[in-house]
């Protein structure tokens, strides 16, 4: 995305509450923001290291439960609870990264699924702490000094700040040595290793940052819906994140955000026409179709199509497809 386009988009996002009058539309915008953070988080692993985490809902849930429990049971205020939620999710990411990133591909997927499964079972069975399947109602709304962020507009700006920060963290990371190391690992691990890239170090780093962002999303979600239950570990959340990243364009900065907006707004728009089960069915079919027909996602496709449509060649050539199929091996 060009700098000008980015500024325009940011300004539009800032002005959104002024022309979205209905609280329902604002609610959709808030959910799109929270999922934007989650999708960016998954993209760090799936898009840049090439490792698919199908246990990402675990980090999301850890963030949500930590934040909810601290504010409910220990009367912490929102901000330190948010901080600890992010830190605990990052810690979980560190352990999973340390343990699992010796494994690649399907084996990494399985370890992350299993981890999410165990955590989810703990949330159901450790009733003294988590209240089991009944969940924890009454999570307090956050406040900023004397101002409560209870209103949808205020919460929208809180989420937007989180999206902005997450985006900047991703951009900083991806455009640094670290990002180049990650892409080198994704494309050809033995080669990257042979020129001195410390594989485990960078993969664990990506896992930690990714988990921390998912924890941030979880905390924001808990204080927005004001209710946390084992449903936060539902596989549906992970699937939604995967669809957003794959559809938007994995391994691109803007892709997860485009995917998040698209797949929050579309289901809401289609809600009248189709039930939730239909939506999930369509998600499944869509994932298959995307792999066949748009394997790089919307953003790289647009980036390729834009100059052609405008009939000009842009000053900065379109980046090569970020996830050219790696060599079989």
């Amino acid at each position, binding site marked *: 995305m060009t700098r000008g386009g980015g500024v325009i988009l940011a300004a539009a996002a800032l002005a959104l509450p002024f022309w979205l009058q209905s609280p329902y539309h604002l609610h959709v915008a808030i959910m799109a923001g929270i999922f934007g953070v989650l999708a960016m988080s998954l993209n760090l692993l799936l898009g840049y290291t090439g490792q698919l985490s199908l246990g990402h809902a675990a980090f999301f849930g850890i963030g949500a439960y930590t934040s909810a429990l601290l504010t409910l049971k220990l009367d912490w205020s929102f901000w330190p609870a948010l901080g600890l939620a992010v830190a605990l999710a990052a810690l979980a990411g560190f352990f999973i990264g340390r343990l699992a990133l010796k494994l690649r591909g*399907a084996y990494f997927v399985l370890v992350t699924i299993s981890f999410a499964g165990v955590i989810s079972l703990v949330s159901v069975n450790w009733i003294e702490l988590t209240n089991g399947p009944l969940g924890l109602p009454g999570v307090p709304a956050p406040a900023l000094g004397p101002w409560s962020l209870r209103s949808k507009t205020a919460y929208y700006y809180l989420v937007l700040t989180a999206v902005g920060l997450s985006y900047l963290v991703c951009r900083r990371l991806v455009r640094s040595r670290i990002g180049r190391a990650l892409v080198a690992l994704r494309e050809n691990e033995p080669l990257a290793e042979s020129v001195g890239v410390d594989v485990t170090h960078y993969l664990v780093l990506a896992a930690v940052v990714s988990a921390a962002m998912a924890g941030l999303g979880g905390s924001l979600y808990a204080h927005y819906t004001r209710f946390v239950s084992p449903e936060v570990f539902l596989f549906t959340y992970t699937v939604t994140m995967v669809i957003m990243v794959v559809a938007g364009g994995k391994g691109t900065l803007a892709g997860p955000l485009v995917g998040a907006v698209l797949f929050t707004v579309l289901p809401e728009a289609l809600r009248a026409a189709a039930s939730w089960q239909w939506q999930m069915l369509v998600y*499944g079919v869509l994932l298959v179709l995307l*792999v066949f027909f748009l394997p790089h996602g919307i953003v790289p496709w647009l980036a390729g199509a834009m100059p052609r449509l405008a009939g000009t060649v842009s000053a900065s050539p379109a980046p090569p497809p970020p996830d050219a199929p790696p060599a079989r091996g």
Partner: protein
Amino acid sequence: MAELLQHLLNGLVLGGTYALLGIGLTLIFGLMNVVNFAHGEFYTLGAYVSFAGLALAGLNFFAALSIAIAAGAALGCLCEVALLRPLRSESIDTTMLVMIGVWIAMQNAELLGWGGVAKSIPHPFPTAPLVLGPVAIAPLRLFVLVLAAALIAGSWLLIQKTKLGRAMRATFQDRDTAALMGVGIGRIHAATFAFGSGLAAAAGALLGPIFLVYPSMGDLASLKAFSVVILGGLGNLPGATLGGLLLGIAEELGAGYISSGYRDAVGFVIIILVLLVRPSGLFARQERIA
């Protein structure tokens, strides 16, 4: 002691069907290099077909089981030909995403078709347990154990003794050389996927009457199948059989002596521990992590 024996027997019944699931998955995974996350959906399909046959059409148990296996194999074959064959030269991650899509689509199609309410499959067996010395077993469970054992033995014979089985083993060892020797790889892949899916459907049809049938039952079945494959080693048929029995018994013991709420955690913990400590599986000889 009697309690331990009882747990072992129950574990064996469960483990027999886990072995069926695991054998199907380990063949697909090992031979086609496809991470089949939809495997559990074929299990669900088998259970629903058996429900339709027994409860709605009033067929006998064997007819319903046969139809379930045939339906699983047919859909598996279709899946291979329509979705996996065009992607054969793609990376393992690409086909994994496709199979995740199939998983979500199939599960929600079942949810739409059958509704979310769990169904129980009627069966013709008496409910009074057979008492064998210190242990007791419901006739249905005994029947399921025997059928699972027969299916496992049948799979083993197919792999070891038939021409198709030899071609499958050759493809597993070295796909390119097998192709050069005149093995039709496309045909073998379709047969493998159909065979694995049929076994998963059989497992669903067998366990369906013991437990309840509901659309998301395949999720846990997939994970258990993966635990079995990981325990047994990739493409390892005896390993998958032993792994299945081991997982069934471990779950029964975990549920009996630790906490029944964490029964399903046993499979997860096995996946994590085995992958971390001995990633080639407990019974494997070859290295399998790229």
